[in-house]
């Protein structure tokens, strides 16, 4: 796989008892690019092992490299160790974003394996993918597609970053409209790769005729991911207090409006505030988060390491949104430094910016909110779970993730692990056994 920017994705197999030179060069048209010996990430391929007879040394590989100053041409030749291993006379060069998605999708062969046998590969591949991701991100632009501004000044700014589908947005805004107006809160919607944007804009115009909320919509030229989308929203915010809200967050259907009103209007000070989140059926899904580590092993290679995982407090408890008593739920988070899910956050813009905003080095999404929380805590700020604030989180369930998504989750987890494996806020495995 080759991008028009020279990103190269190589995958295949080799009998490493026979071949030990992995010097790569590629010919694109009449230009030859020497890539030196880029890192090959090896993994066991039983189908290959069966054929070549080597069950000990991994034979499958993935390599992501970069050729400089590529002049596009339809003819491609790839040499490894001096041997021509691949040629294509009618090559279709991919744009970087397509390359990224397809290369990530192809990596699912590794991402789908137990993390113990693939963590080193993920940590090795991450920088190459992060480089492509950064270049893709840098090319993104945002367009102001809709603006309905009623207030001279906004006290708070709700930022809703949407990926692809906005089918819950109107329902969500209907549920919040009255409180948005009453608390002087603007809404900034950031659309990543939004489908049906024209229709949405038309519908939002009609919505604002009935609910005169202060609303602006920005459309990204592609998918800027969760962090960059929200960071952009924050850059456009007129309110000092930012409320980051997923498009699937709703107040309880019997709520009298006080949940949104109180959450929007209460100043979080220098802390980051989260809330109690419940599933659509009313059971608790989130009362804070912590990060812990698992030991991962690969007996074949003798590899042993730790990999980080983020856990939600409250998941699996039988506490219902209508239950008044939260003491048992909050027992686990009492006096503990916790993280909170970015599905719903409230933070002063000044604090958000001081921490540097959401980290954009996580590819598309996942683990960035935990990273931000850890940065915040390590920077001396507090995180507060506002247990008086209860919201429904219609988190999609039962849908299979696309291969590319499984891969970037895998890479982001490896990156998160590398960054925080020695952090003092990581909960030890022993404590994790009872923490819920």
């Amino acid at each position, binding site marked *: 796989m080759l991008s028009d920017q020279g990103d190269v994705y190589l995958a295949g197999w080799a009998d490493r008892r026979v071949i030990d030179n992995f010097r790569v060069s590629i010919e694109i048209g009449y230009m030859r690019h020497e890539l030196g010996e880029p890192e090959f990430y090896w993994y066991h391929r039983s189908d290959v092992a069966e054929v070549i007879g080597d069950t000990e040394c991994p034979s499958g590989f993935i390599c992501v490299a970069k050729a400089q100053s590529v002049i596009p041409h339809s003819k491609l030749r790839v040499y490894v160790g001096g041997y021509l291993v691949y040629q294509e006379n009618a090559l279709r060069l991919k744009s970087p974003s397509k390359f990224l998605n397809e290369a990530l999708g192809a990596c699912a062969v590794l991402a789908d394996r137990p993390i113990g046998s693939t963590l080193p590969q993920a940590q090795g591949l991450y920088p190459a993918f992060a480089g492509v991701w950064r270049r893709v991100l840098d090319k993104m632009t945002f367009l102001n597609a809709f603006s309905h501004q009623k207030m001279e000044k906004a006290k708070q700014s709700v930022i809703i970053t949407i990926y692809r589908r906005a*089918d*819950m947005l*109107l*329902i969500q805004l*209907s*549920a919040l409209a*009255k409180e948005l*107006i*009453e608390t002087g809160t603007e809404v900034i919607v950031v659309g990543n790769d939004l489908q049906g944007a024209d*229709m949405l804009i*038309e*519908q*939002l*115009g*009609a*919505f604002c*005729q*009935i609910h*005169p909320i202060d609303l602006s919509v920005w459309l990204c030229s592609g998918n800027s991911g969760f962090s960059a989308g929200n960071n952009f929203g924050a850059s456009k915010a007129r309110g000092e207090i930012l409320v980051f809200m997923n498009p*699937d967050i*709703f107040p309880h*259907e019997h709520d009298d409006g006080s949940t949104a009103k109180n959450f929007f209007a209460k100043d979080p000070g220098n802390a980051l505030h989260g809330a109690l989140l419940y599933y*659509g*059926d009313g059971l608790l899904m989130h009362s804070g988060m912590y990060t812990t580590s698992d030991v991962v092993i690969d007996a074949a290679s003798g590899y042993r390491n730790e990999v980080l995982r983020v856990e939600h407090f409250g998941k699996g408890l039988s506490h219902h949104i209508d239950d008044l008593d939260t003491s048992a739920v909050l027992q686990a988070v009492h006096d503990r430094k916790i993280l909170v899910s970015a599905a719903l956050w409230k933070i002063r813009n000044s604090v958000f910016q001081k921490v540097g905003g959401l980290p954009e080095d996580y590819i598309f999404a996942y683990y960035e909110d935990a990273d931000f929380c850890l940065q915040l805590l390590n920077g001396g700020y507090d995180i507060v779970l506002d247990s008086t604030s209860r919201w429904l989180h*219609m*988190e*999609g*369930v*039962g*849908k299979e993730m696309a291969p590319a998504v499984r891969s970037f989750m895998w890479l982001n987890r490896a990156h998160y692990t590398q960054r925080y494996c020695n952090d003092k806020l990581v909960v030890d495995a022993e404590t994790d056994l009872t923490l819920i």
Partner: protein
Amino acid sequence: MKYLTVALYHPRVLRGGAQYVAKDLHDTAAKTPGVDAVLLACIDGNMFPQYGKVGASITSLPDSPNEFIMAGQRFDDFYHVVYDKRRNKALTRFLLDQKPDVIHFHHSLWVGLEFIELARKVLPNVKIIYTLHEYMAICHSRGQLFRYGESSICLDSSPDQCNKCFPGISSDDFYLRRRTFQRAFRFVDHFVSPSEYLKSRFVEWGIDAEKITVIHNGHQPSRPKGWQPTHSNDLNVFGFFGQFVDAKGIDVLLKAAALVSQETPVEIKIFGGNKQYASADYIGRIDHILSGNTENLKITEVGSYSRNNVFDLMSTVDWVVVPSVWPETFGLVVSEAWDAKRPVIASRAGGLSERIKDGTNGFSFLPGSDLQLSSILKNCIGNFDLWRTLVDKMKDEVTLDIAWKQHLQVVKGIRRTAGQADQLVESK
């Protein structure tokens, strides 16, 4: 009093039960001294472009003063919302110009649930009533509460159960759908249900029982004065009147008739349109039954009918069978049969069970039970005394005038306080 009826379609655009009820009430209201009646019919402008005018959201219905058409270009058939800027402007102006005291919504399809909220915002003191013609708010499956996959009435409308009928739509989406309807219904002052059954399902779903009044759909009699019912020589002609679709249970009737024909001659007349909407499986089942046609079984597919000729057509059968397998909300065909003095044999599905008292004004059977129905058919064939007794005991459905008066009582019972209005104005 200005009385605005908001309907799904208009009988002149597309015939159907809900639009007939709405139009009948509108016509009756228009004849009432002191009532200024206006009708706004919301239609699919893509299906009936002849009623739309470019750039105009609301147009008049030719030769019908005080009757208007709102031809929509799009409609979200899951959440039942439209959100159209041009339409909102026109509607706001229409409401301000018409200044109705009462708005009577008859549907959400092509009406759009946000219309209710818009009406409340524009006219904070307007009295809003809403007739629940079927279970559309509860059930995304054609509003029928019928599980096509299981061929059974749906008795549990929890979001996870909806997901069984629509595996591609998540429970959360169904939760939000319910929430969207319930939110819009908060702006309604009072609901009207044509049957106790339908009311009970909506109470179970979340509407306060005190906010729903049961008013039967009024019926305009076609029976001439002094007219006497007659029957066939063998009293063995059974008629089906309704749509030729799965939930109407024609297959149940035909299976029962086939069983009866093993012993005695029987004739079935099917008056039903919209066969194109029946599933292939359903048509296959019917073809299979018909393939075993015996000499004793005569089946005639007559085609569609209208209420202009239903009285005459019903006079060509001895008995009317309503074999519905979905919980009918009212059963207009029963009113028509009573008008034509035809005893009704109906399944105990939904509102039908309230109207047909077994052995008193007809017979009833378990929905889908061809065996039970066949026993009833056998008992009816040639039983002249039974037929006469049922015909004599038969009472007509309430007239339109009575139904309209009952609606007026509902309107009078609505008290909108100044406080309620102020609250809404503040939130504008």
